[in-house]
């Protein structure tokens, strides 16, 4: 429903957006025994690393090809080769996943070609899979990088296999937390289906204490699982950003697919469970029937606090739709919606307009529309402070809260958790009134004064006139 407009500004103020290579690295972090590498100068990696660490409070494996000015101009073959060999030697990952950056894209490095050459020259890399994705910083946003990374993984590693009727592939969007992925896996498995989650940050970034110290990711989708995806009976994607990957799977292995535009909300989850029942030939388990009715109750309890609330949301497209869609269903008004990049998801958003912009747009939009609630990542805290409005933190990065890995927003249960979170936040905003809160206008006070006769002649009421009047 929403129409998309692009911010007309030359200068982005308080960015909402993050870059493609970071989104791609995020996806690669969901592969087991993987080392993501940014092909670029080392600062890009360092910035990405800091954000990931602050969000997940975890050690994050992420490397750089450490390009400098000279190598950038000469081309990055040597650096890619050196990086691959070094990483192989130090951390022995099963997969090394490379994403390009603005720098190497501007130069026009042919990384696909480099990899072919490295393969020929360096047999010691034979036991390591290499995945490459092109992600220039000056195109698209975080979600686009993530999207292309899934496609790249599929294209590099999946081959058709005989179909297993009870196995499905789940492609989670980048807006799902490890907790969300666990929730979906549990739902899928409750139908007797097995699932391959790609990528699966619930294995690597769910905040656990690992047995030892390894240089690579600790958990996530294994190589065997990725390959096995060629035999899944169905692909389920969450978020428009997974469509490209799902379609790649269909092209390679002929797997039918369905993309759920979101899994936060009642009706979408109904459809999801229906679909699972249909694929598995099993009825919806009692547990979820029960959860559905709990969600209904939560929606009823919650609507008092969400109805009529004017919200301003800044988020990547799929997350914007998930949160905005639910809030709309709970009676809130989406007055100001800011996103980072183009996506078919925007067309589904129950708002008038989506602006591809920054947090300055969000702040001004929220102020103009008199919004009661701001919803965006942690960078929104300055705007919220200035506007003196509550901030609900969502998405990535949320660096000033802990527990992000376990926060749930999908399924009946996750939807319910999220409703409680918003409603409780709004309950905190309920104003407590004081005797002086509703002063009359001076006109009203004057009109109501006893010597209305005197008042009509324009004489102001003073003690003397009052005394005279009563005399």
């Amino acid at each position, binding site marked *: 429903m929403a129409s998309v407009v692009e911010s007309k500004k030359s200068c982005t103020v308080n960015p909402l957006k993050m870059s493609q290579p970071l989104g791609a690295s995020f996806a690669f972090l969901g592969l087991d025994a993987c080392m993501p590498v940014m092909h670029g100068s080392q600062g890009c990696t360092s910035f990405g690393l800091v*954000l990931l660490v602050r969000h997940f409070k975890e050690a994050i494996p992420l490397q750089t090809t450490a390009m400098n000015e000279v190598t950038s101009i000469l081309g990055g073959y040597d650096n890619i080769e050196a990086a691959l060999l070094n990483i192989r030697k130090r951390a022995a990952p099963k997969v090394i996943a490379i994403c390009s950056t603005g720098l190497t894209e501007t130069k026009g490095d042919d990384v696909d070609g480099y990899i072919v050459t490295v393969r020929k020259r360096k047999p010691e890399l034979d036991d390591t899979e290499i995945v490459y994705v092109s992600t220039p910083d000056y195109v698209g946003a975080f979600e686009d990088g993530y999207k292309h990374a899934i496609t790249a993984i599929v294209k590099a590693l999946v081959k058709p296999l005989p179909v297993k009727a009870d196995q499905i592939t789940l492609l989670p969007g980048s807006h799902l937390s490890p907790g969300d992925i666990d929730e979906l896996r549990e739902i899928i498995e409750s139908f007797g289906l097995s699932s391959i989650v790609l990528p699966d940050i619930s294995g690597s970034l769910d905040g656990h204490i690992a047995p030892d110290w390894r240089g690579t990711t600790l958990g996530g989708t294994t190589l065997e699982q990725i390959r096995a995806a060629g035999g899944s009976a169905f692909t389920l994607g969450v978020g428009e950003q997974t469509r490209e990957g799902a379609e790649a799977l269909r092209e390679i292995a002929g797997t039918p697919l369905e993309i759920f535009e979101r899994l936060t909300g009642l009706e979408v989850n109904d459809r999801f469970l229906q679909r699972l029942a249909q694929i598995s030939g099993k009825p919806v388990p009692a547990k979820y029937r029960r959860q559905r009715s709990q969600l209904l109750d939560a929606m009823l309890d919650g609507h008092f606090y969400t109805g009529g609330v004017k919200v301003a949301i800044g988020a990547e497209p799929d997350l914007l739709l998930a949160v905005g869609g639910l809030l709309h269903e709970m009676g809130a008004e989406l007055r100001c919606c800011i996103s980072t990049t183009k996506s078919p998801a925007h067309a589904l958003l129950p708002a008038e307009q989506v602006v591809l912009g920054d947090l300055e747009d969000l702040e001004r939009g929220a102020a103009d529309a008199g919004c009661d609630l701001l919803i965006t990542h942690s960078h929104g805290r300055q705007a919220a402070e200035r506007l003196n409005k509550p901030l609900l933190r969502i998405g990535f990065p949320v660096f000033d809260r802990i527990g992000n890995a376990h926060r749930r927003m999908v399924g009946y249960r996750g939807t319910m958790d999220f409703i409680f979170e918003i409603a409780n936040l709004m309950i905190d905003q309920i104003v407590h009134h004081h005797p002086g809160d509703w002063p009359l206008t001076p006109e009203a006070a004057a009109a109501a004064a006893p010597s209305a006769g005197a008042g009509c002649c324009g004489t102001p009421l003073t003690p003397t006139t009052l005394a005279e009047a009563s005399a």
Partner: protein
Amino acid sequence: MSVSLKAKIAEVFEEPGCDKNQGKTEKERKKGCTKQLNPGAAAGGCAFDGAKIALQPVVDVAHLVHGPIACEGNSWDNRHSASSGSQLYRTGFTTDINELDVIYGGEKRLFKSIREIIDKYDPPAVFVYQTCVTALVGDDIEAVCQRATEKFGKPIIPVNAPGFAGPKNLGNKLGAEALLDYVIGTVEPEFTTPYDINIIGEYNLVGELWQVKPLLDALGIRILSCISGDGRYNEVASAHRAKVNMMVCSKSMINIATKMEQRWGIPYFEGSFYGIGDMSDTLRQIATLLVKQGAPADLLERTERLIAVEEARAWERIAHYKTRLTGKRALLITGGVKSWSVVAALQEAGIEIAGTSVKKSTKEDKEKIKEIMGDDAHMIDDMTPREMYNMLRDARADIMLSGGRSQFVALKARMPWLDINQERHHPYGGYEGMVELVREIDRAIYNPVWQQVRIPAPWGDDGETLGAVPTAAIPEVPAQGMGFLADIAAKAMGLEPEEIPV
């Protein structure tokens, strides 16, 4: 690389005040900080990052990053450099260039961005940062800034330190060069006093400058400008009228100190706010230099009196922790001056130093460590995360003090960790800060959570396989009497423990 940038980098490498560089041979120096990093085994920020760290604490100017979204979008709002006024420095400005800008050049967009910032925010100046992509496509930010300066009648300062020029510390210096070329000396202060000093290389992280400023205030010493913590554009621009420069020992902006000496004859010294002895030395040095420069001589006496009072108070407050911390071992993974300057305070509290890293330390730093700790047995040159992990897991240290990067090494080994680098939330400057540091160490080590997280799972498949600290190695936590609770209660009330009536 533009010719001007090349010249700048060469100049920075010639830096006479940087003994790290002077210690190198001619050839090494040429290579300088641009030595090839190891692809696939490198860590750390880029030159742009360094320049931004150095200059962003100037709080009232707009910091505009010219490049694709990566550079600013992935990094803004990331540091705790505190401001006592304007918050403009926390606003993330970037040209966020797109494909067309890459093809046709981003200069137009940059110019328009500057105009938008001036229209909307009207800062006293705009700092424009070059980054890799815009440097590679050849955007001439110096020219754009010059044109914008003329057009808008405001200083628009180019900061030419694209990421690929080198690592973070080179960026610090290039940022400083921008100040030398375009800012310092361009404004006259309203008035001067014989007690005016500049502090260079202090970023006021978590407000540390404010732990020191009251001491200077009490002596009547005025910080004419701090470069750049809690700095104001006009203060920095008038810094050339100070009588003395203090260089905070991280040598990140040594070029400012040496060039100001050449240009305006301002003497400088290197000092530190970390560690009690160092804080006192710093006060002495400031006073001595000011008197040499013409300040009344009684400043020296007053300084000594202040030092005596402050030191006594600090040692007494640290001694308070002695019984609880005696025999505890700390692993110190930090850089440069901090690898030794905090040691005295820790030792005073009874803490042993299990090791201190010297990876980023100079020869002098190492000498000092030897001096304080007797030998060099505790110096750690380079430690892999796995070695740190093993050391902690085997309980050869009771706490690790380091930067955020390695925090999980300690936490995953289920050992206490304290941030002493730039993302920390507690200020450790001056006399106040050292007491705070010891208090934080105490709070970390004595948190009962350590006993909890080391409990092996009853079903036995946890403790060993997950690398928990072997039960025998768990340090005994003394019975927690009321003393411990009083501490917590005191903290909760914002009081000193000793202020609590027993």
